[in-house]
Structures are given as structure tokens and as C-alpha cells.
């Protein structure tokens, strides 16, 4: 029987949400392919997560005990290689998450597996068919994995609705010979990025600017506009990278997840990592000169226009 293997993620004692999205993806393939669905968790004390991972549709939870307290990519590689060898899955699903970026491609490369990352949809046609973006999400591609016994797909966060519903899958400990030497990096500590003067996660109205602003000196115009409109100013990552704006104002995967009533975006292309932060926004309005900018796929209102010209006119409306 075909097996789909989902690799769940945990961090600092908690299962990460992506795990349930992967289970949902696995469940879909299970139905299309008539497969069985196994969920693996590699952690220092994996048993504590087994119950929570037993959602509806999961046939088996596989636990692997890690010699390290925290995720370590080389341990994760070895564990997954052993799981693939023992369980012979036709499809392995990982998150396209920071942890999995550290080991998924390594396992695929050394194992000669079929492989695609940042996958947004999965179909089954005698084998997996994956869909992902191309040219920074302006296009989509479809990929096949001919002659591959096993294919590893790294699935974009948010591409699947998380699975819910209790299941009754048994847990099985998979013994993998991992010793402390399997780890090739040494955890020192976790640290939170310094918080700043504002809490953009609490804002009802965010006016957000991206690289379209072009120059540090142009930011002032939008600070003034935000003030006039009663909005809080937030930014995309490049403005923080350039040192123009503090970390606390950054929206996105590595910044803040925001949930304003209105998110007014100027000169932001809408990269997936930015989108990750605005899924909970009520109304998204995007102003961008590029009609193909991916932000228009998720915005509620869009305008193909120059952000400076629109900002100037808006300022007049709110004088």
C-alpha cells in the first residue's frame, strides 16, 4: 500500500500549526491515492505530542526520540532518512518552514528523491503532481516526479486549512540509532527580537509601505499620511533590512502577524512571507504600479497607480 508520511514540527514544547496543515494535505492525497497516512514527530520527548497529532484520518503516529533538546537539522536529516528507509513512503510532506529548510533539501539530495519546495497544491496521478509559484509567484508551475520511488514536498504555510477532528491512530516508537554526535550544530539559546515603541498587532488600521518607497527620505510623506488618516505605519522587510525602520514595524513571517480592520499597502509586491502576516486582515487595499504584483491576488481592493501620487491625493482627503 502507498504510504504518505507527514513530518510534524515542534518548537519549545509545542506542536507548530504547520503540522496540522500538512496532515490536511496528507489526508487529501490519502483519499486520491488510496494511501495510508503516517505522521512522524522527532523530538526529545516525542510521546508528549503523539495524542495531539492523532487527528482524524491519521493511520499511525511514528515517534522518534532525538538526542538533542531542540530541533537540530542534522539529527532531523538522519531521522528522516531512517524513516524513509523503514517505512518506504511514496510521498513525504514537510513544511516549507525555517526548520525544514535546514534539512528537507539535504535528505532529498542524498536520497535521490523527487523534490519540490514551497508547494501550494498537490494532486495524484499515479504519483504526486505538485504546484508551486514561479518568478516570485507571478506564474505557477506544475511539476511531476517521474521514476522517483519517493518524493519529498515542502508545503507552503497557509496553503491547506489545518486538519481537525479527533482520531484514534496508534503511536509507534521507531528506533533510530542517533547519538549526540549526530548533531553537528550546538544550540546556545533562543532570543526574541527586541520589541519596539509600537505594537502593530494591536492596530485597527495599518498603512503599510514597501520597497516601492525607494528612499529613506520618502518615508516621511507616509508617516504624515498615516497620522492624518489615523493609521499606524507598518512596513515590509526590505525597509527594516536597510535600517530605515525598526523591526517592531515589520509585517510578515519573520515579523509580526497583524489583524487590522484595514490594511492599506503601498508599494508592496506581496511575497509569500509578507502575505503570511496579513491573512487575518479585514480589508486589504493595495496600491502598486505593477498590475501583475501578487498582492492583487489577496487584496480586496487594488489600484494600479503610483503610490506617491495616490498618497498626495489621500493627504488632501484627510486634511
Amino acid at each position: 500500500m502507498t504510504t504518505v508520511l507527514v513530518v510534524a514540527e515542534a518548537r519549545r514544547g509545542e506542536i507548530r500549526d504547520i503540522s496540522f496543515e500538512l496532515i490536511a494535505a496528507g489526508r487529501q492525497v490519502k483519499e486520491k491515492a488510496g494511501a495510508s497516512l503516517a505522521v512522524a514527530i522527532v523530538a526529545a520527548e516525542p510521546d508528549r505530542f503523539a495524542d495531539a497529532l492523532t487527528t482524524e484520518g491519521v493511520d499511525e503516529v511514528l515517534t522518534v526520540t532525538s538526542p538533542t533538546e531542540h530541533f537540530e537539522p542534522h539529527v532531523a536529516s538522519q531521522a528522516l532518512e531512517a524513516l524513509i528507509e523503514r517505512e518506504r513512503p511514496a510521498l513525504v510532506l514537510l513544511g516549507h518552514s525555517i526548520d525544514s529548510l535546514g534539512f528537507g533539501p539535504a535528505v532529498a539530495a542524498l536520497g535521490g528523491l523527487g523534490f519540490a519546495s514551497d508547494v501550494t497544491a498537490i494532486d495524484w496521478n499515479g504519483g504526486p503532481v505538485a504546484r508551486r509559484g514561479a518568478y516570485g509567484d507571478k506564474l505557477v508551475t506544475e511539476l511531476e516526479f517521474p521514476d522517483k520511488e519517493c518524493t519529498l514536498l515542502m508545503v507552503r504555510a497557509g496553503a491547506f486549512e489545518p486538519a481537525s477532528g479527533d482520531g484514534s491512530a496508534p503511536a509507534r516508537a521507531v528506533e533510530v540509532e542517533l547519538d549526540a554526535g549526530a548533531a553537528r550544530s550546538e544550540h546556545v539559546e533562543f532570543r526574541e527580537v527586541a520589541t519596539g515603541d509600537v505594537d502593530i498587532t494591536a492596530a485597527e488600521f495599518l498603512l503599510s509601505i514597501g520597497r516601492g518607497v525607494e528612499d529613506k527620505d520618502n518615508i516621511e510623506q507616509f508617516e504624515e499620511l498615516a497620522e492624518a488618516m489615523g493609521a499606524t505605519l507598518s512596513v515590509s522587510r526590505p525597509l527594516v533590512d536597510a535600517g530605515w525602520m525598526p523591526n517592531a514595524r515589520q509585517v510578515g513571517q519573520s515579523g509580526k502577524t497583524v489583524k487590522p480592520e484595514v490594511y492599506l499597502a503601498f508599494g508592496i509586491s506581496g511575497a509569500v512571507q509578507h502575505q503570511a502576516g496579513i491573512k487575518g486582515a479585514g480589508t486589504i487595499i493595495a496600491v502598486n504600479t505593477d498590475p501583475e504584483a501578487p498582492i492583487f491576488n489577496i487584496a480586496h481592493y487594488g489600484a494600479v497607480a503610483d503610490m506617491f501620487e495616490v498618497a498626495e491625493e489621500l493627504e488632501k482627503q484627510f486634511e
Partner: protein
Amino acid sequence: MRIVVSVKQVAALDDEFELADDLHVDPDFVEWELNEWDNFSLEAALQLREAAGEGEVVAVSVGDSETDEGLRSCLAKGADRAIRIWDEGLEDADPLAVARVLAAAVERESPDLVLCGVQSSDAVNGATGVALAAHLGLPRVAVVTSLDYDQATNTATVERELEGGLIEVLRVQCPALLTIQTGINEPRYATLRAIKQARDKPLAEVGLGDLGLDPGAVSSAAGARRVRLAHPEKGEGAEMLTGSPAELATRIAEIVRERVG
């Protein structure tokens, strides 16, 4: 010390573009530029070399002749030499095939450190670096936002950026491969003089045969085959507002006031 920086010349689509067929974009609508992430990894390498007061920074890329411009810009910023690897069969190569090819070239350099970008802005695989590390048998750290190299112990203390503003500090023994995240430093610009001087720096062109690779090994390393390239289904998409900037502003103001008035 020797640091290899793996860089990619990426394709940026024009605002308006067309497909050439159901697998490719019409090249007339494509601009080529050095991958944003790779500017940061090059800068990190240059800073390490400068701090050590000795050493060599080698830029390596798999790409056709469009890539020369990107490699020349690396040389102008301070890389000591560059290597461009190409073979017709590498067109459309997936990240695993590219990693396999890069591994053959990087191995010959016996580097102390290999730096890649977290991702390339056109393909967004986030995969080539870690796959390359696997082939080289090097320890790796992905998504690095701070790098502190200690020459005495040949170790790197790095910060890895996790989701939601969490950072993990960790230590790794070199030689190692790091994938570098934007914002780790402030990439320099090349001076006009340096751009001129870069013309005399070595840029080697090598083929698969020079690396002891045969095309079969590369294609079997590939992880996927692209079967279709298309415009995304728009879904519901945005309601597009039209008109002059003043008219747009009026509509936007209305929408905003209705919701947060």
C-alpha cells in the same frame, strides 16, 4: 581562509510579460540581476576576509552568459575570482541538479566556509544551499541573520531567524555552509575604479566535463520535471479601482472610512 560564495543571476519579469510556450517566459520580457540574497552573502564573505586580513573569496555560479554580468559585479565588489559553470543541458535545471553541479566545483576549492543565499527571488526554492551542503558533507545552518567567525577555533557562532521574530543562537564547526538572510549586513557598492579593475580579475568558464560530471549524473540528480507554466488562476482577486490619482484617493478614503471611520 577561503570562502566560496554561490550566487545566482535571477530573472525579473517586466510589469507586462508574455509566455513563449507552456513551459517558458518569452525572454524579451526578462531582466537579469544578481539575486538580492546573494549580495548579502557576498558582503558577509568580504567582511570575513577583511577581518582575517588574508584569504580568498571565490564567487561560483551555474548559469548561461547572462550570468557573467552578475559575477563581474561580485568581482568589482571585491571577490578575488569567479567561476561560471554552464552546459546547455542545465537550462531549466532544478535546485537538486544545480546543487549537484555546484558540489563538484566547490569541492575542488576546499573552502573553509561556503555561503549561499536563503533563496533566489525568481525560483524561491530555498533549497540549493542545504542540498549543496549535503553533497559536500558539510554541517549547515539555514537562514542566518548574524555571523561571528572565530579564526582560532575555526567555529562560527550564528543567529538563525525563526518565524515570528524568534532567534536561535547556535555554534557550528567550520568548514560549514550557511544560507544567508537579507539584512545581515549592508552590502557595498562597487566604485567605478573597482568595476574597471574587475575586468582583469579571473572569471573561469567551466563545463560539466571539466568537473568530471556527465550529463546523465546531473539529470538523474534532478528532483522534478516541469510540465506546465501558466498564469495563476486569479481566484476572486481584488476589485480593481480605476481613475485618476484623485479619484482613486476618493474611493480609498471612502472604503477606509466605512470600516474604521
